[in-house]
């Protein structure tokens, strides 16, 4: 069974780190054969919104956020890694390792 991850990225300025983190999450997921959906909450609003059924199917949630986000309660009850966008830009492999560790 392929591992499934849902993630949200949101930085303060809403452009640079939000989208750099998104790009890195997708890059590493592709490299590891992991399915990922990344929602961005940035300067252009919410894009690629994660649905309740996508949350239900996910094995773990990554919240790469430097600020509060819309709809955080969608992820309640799911193993969740909450970190800033910077670690995702800087060391995305390590972030993935940490997230995968949460899957029991």
């Amino acid at each position, binding site marked *: 069974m392929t591992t499934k991850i849902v993630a949200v990225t949101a930085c303060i*300025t*809403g*452009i640079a780190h*939000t*989208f*750099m983190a998104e790009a890195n999450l997708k890059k590493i997921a592709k490299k590891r054969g992991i399915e990922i959906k990344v929602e961005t909450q940035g*300067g252009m609003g919410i894009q690629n919104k994660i649905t309740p059924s996508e949350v239900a199917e996910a094995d773990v949630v990554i919240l790469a956020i430097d600020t509060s986000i819309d709809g955080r309660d969608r992820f309640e009850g799911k193993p969740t890694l909450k970190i800033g966008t*910077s670690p995702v*830009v*800087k060391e995305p492999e390590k972030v993935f390792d940490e997230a995968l560790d949460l899957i029991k």
Partner: protein
Amino acid sequence: MNGVIIKENLLNLEANTKESVIRKLAKELSVEGIVENSEEFVKAVISREEEITTGVGNGIAVPHGKSVEVKESTVIFAKLKHPVDWNSIDNKLVDMVFLLAISGSDKGDNHLEILAGLAGRLMDEEFVESIRKTNDINKIMEIIITK
């Protein structure tokens, strides 16, 4: 105007420190009418830089600032004549800088998409190399705005 500024005089920019690079690019933005008061804008950029470095590796820096001084969201690009220390996450010197000026108004503007698309692709080494290899303004513009 499509939100991307690339000028001949910025493809060989002389500057010794990251603050100097930021100031010079902010000044160009002021000359282009993008930023009203470049001092305020510079403060916003430097303050963001102090929170966390925008030297994201691969010789690139993405300094950025959101300010009411910014008339419309714009990215201004520079190649540095001499690589500069940017406290990068991979400890390498920076030779290409993309300064993002983000408009303070809550309404999104069309240029944000270009800036966002650019930010994402900066994580891709091939994308970065394709810009590093050429000094042709039109080519660089094409690379930056094409999805």
